């Protein structure tokens, strides 16, 4: 079976317009989260991270398009344009496009929004992205709750192995909207201070906003220094509850087991874990159980939610990209917001950013609908 790689990548975030600036700030343990008051989103202050609108608009003008685009389209177009530009990849019939999003242009449902309701259809979002760059295939939109970003990488790999494509551009994004915030607020899941994954005093999640993209390819001529091989991936349902995680971490445990089996690696060969870690009491506890069942309780682990918040459909992709850079820099990034372990099973939470020789990492995600995804990555040159 030929190897499938993740290569050129981009993150448009509260830190700036590329992956390097985000990684640099994470390395310095600086969060992009801040408390803001925005009555258009929620009548109470929220803690969030978003790309600066002025910087985003200026950068988007550089793409020289006359057509009006929504904020999410701007985020995705900007991110993909940077990834494509860096890759210098000619768009042929063998180049696929996968968009990972939970809600797409959901803000167009707001009565004062200037765009038509038609833009809320995810196919319409996919069409805008496809035609902007002249992709020859229709966009595949994947909407699988909070595992979408990691699952999109798995889907890209599978479609390349199946011969559908030679390369796939995977892009992910979701907006910080009244729609989303009011929903999580109704669940009483939001924290109004920077979130604290796995911490004893964690009080809930922050919702953040990014646009992220990566080139998935089988072509070794297209690799960058942070490129990784996708060694294994799996996705398993909890078959338990649609809005609460399994008490035994069943689906996550099974996903990790299957992804490890496929990778051919043993648990002790995983050098670090980029976990989901939303900082809700139940999610983090469920993860601790699943990681221990998978014999990963001692593996250095972080959640990047303390830097970006939970970026929904982008999160798994965003966190995989940061994980690629962490591997290339042989660095374990601190799990921001963590002080004292607040889950019932032991976990090796990374408390400060340190250099460490590394070869592999595991990325996991879990979401509504009982879905879980795990993927194992290894430095491409090894």
């Amino acid at each position: 079976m030929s190897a499938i790689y993740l290569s050129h990548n981009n993150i448009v975030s509260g830190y700036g317009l590329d992956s390097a600036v985000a990684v640099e700030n994470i390395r310095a343990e600086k969060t992009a989260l801040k408390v803001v008051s925005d009555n258009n989103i929620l009548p109470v202050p929220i803690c969030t991270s978003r790309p600066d609108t002025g910087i985003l608009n200026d950068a988007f003008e550089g793409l020289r398009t006359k057509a009006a685009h929504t904020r999410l389209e701007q985020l995705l177009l900007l991110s993909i344009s940077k990834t494509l530009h860096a890759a210098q990849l000619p768009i042929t019939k063998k180049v696929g496009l996968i968009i990972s999003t939970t809600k797409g242009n959901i803000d167009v449902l707001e009565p004062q929004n200037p765009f038509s309701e038609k833009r809320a259809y995810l196919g319409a979002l996919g069409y805008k992205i496809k035609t902007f760059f002249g992709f020859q295939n229709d966009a595949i939109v994947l909407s699988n709750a909070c595992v979408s970003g990691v699952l999109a990488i798995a889907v890209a790999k599978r479609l390349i192995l199946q011969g559908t494509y030679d390369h796939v551009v995977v892009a992910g994004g979701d907006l910080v909207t009244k729609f989303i915030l009011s929903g999580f607020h109704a669940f009483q899941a939001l924290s109004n201070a920077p979130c604290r994954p796995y911490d004893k005093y964690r009080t809930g999640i922050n919702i953040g906003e990014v646009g992220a993209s990566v080139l998935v390819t089988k072509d070794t001529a297209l690799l960058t220094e942070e490129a990784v091989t996708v060694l294994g991936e799996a996705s398993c349902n909890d078959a338990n509850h649609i809005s609460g995680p399994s008490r035994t971490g069943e689906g996550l445990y099974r996903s990790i087991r299957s992804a490890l089996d496929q990778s051919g690696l043993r648990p002790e060969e995983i050098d670090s874990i980029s976990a989901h870690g939303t900082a809700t009491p139940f999610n983090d506890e469920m993860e601790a159980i699943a990681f221990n069942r998978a014999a990963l309780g001692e593996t250095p682990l972080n959640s990047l939610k303390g830097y970006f918040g939970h970026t929904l459909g982008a999160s798994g992709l965003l966190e995989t990209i940061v994980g690629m850079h962490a591997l290339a820099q042989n660095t374990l990034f601190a799990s921001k917001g963590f002080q004292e372990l607040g889950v019932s099973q032991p976990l090796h939470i990374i408390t400060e950013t340190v250099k460490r020789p590394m070869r592999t990492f595991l990325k996991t995600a879990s979401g509504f609908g009982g879905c879980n995804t795990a993927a194992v990555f290894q430095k491409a040159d090894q």
Partner: protein
Amino acid sequence: MMHASHHIQSYCHVRNGSVLLNGKTIFESAASDWKTFSKTAYRQLDMDHSKFFKMDTLSKLAMIASEPLLRSEPEKNIALVLSNRASSLDTDRKHQKSIEDPELFYPSPAVFVYTLPNICLGEISIKHRLFSENSFFVFDTFNADILYDYATGLLNGNSAEKVLCGWVDNDNEKYGAFLYVVAKNGIFTHSKKRINQLYRTP
């Protein structure tokens, strides 16, 4: 690497007040409205799953369409790969309505949780005890090519023994589902042409 060809083991249509299994009507409702139809279908199919009544239309539709295919299916490593056009927009509009007026602000967690299309995969997984692969795709129109390639890839990559594939869409009172099971053995050879043909003509 050579792989054995796969087959379509069974398929189910839900449309215009009818449920068809392998092209034959197994339930027909006199009432054309969704509410009556779905309630009667639930009883006639003997689904015995009281959570059904808390679900949104998309999940109910997916439950009805998957029931005839999964009720006596012994294989549990069966991936779920569903798709549609409207995602969860029907429920999204409901949630949006509940937050529009600051005076009448009443977002409900019970509605909000259904504002994701993959929730219907979770509901099928719970009902049929499936700890398997889940993916939900959104396309402008039925996309047999991607469903075929992805299902074939899951089977060839040993990610699943069988795959429940298809289309489950509801939008502004219109609903329709076409699901099929891909397996080693079955009625038809698994091909893009056959999937498209079955989708169009039950």
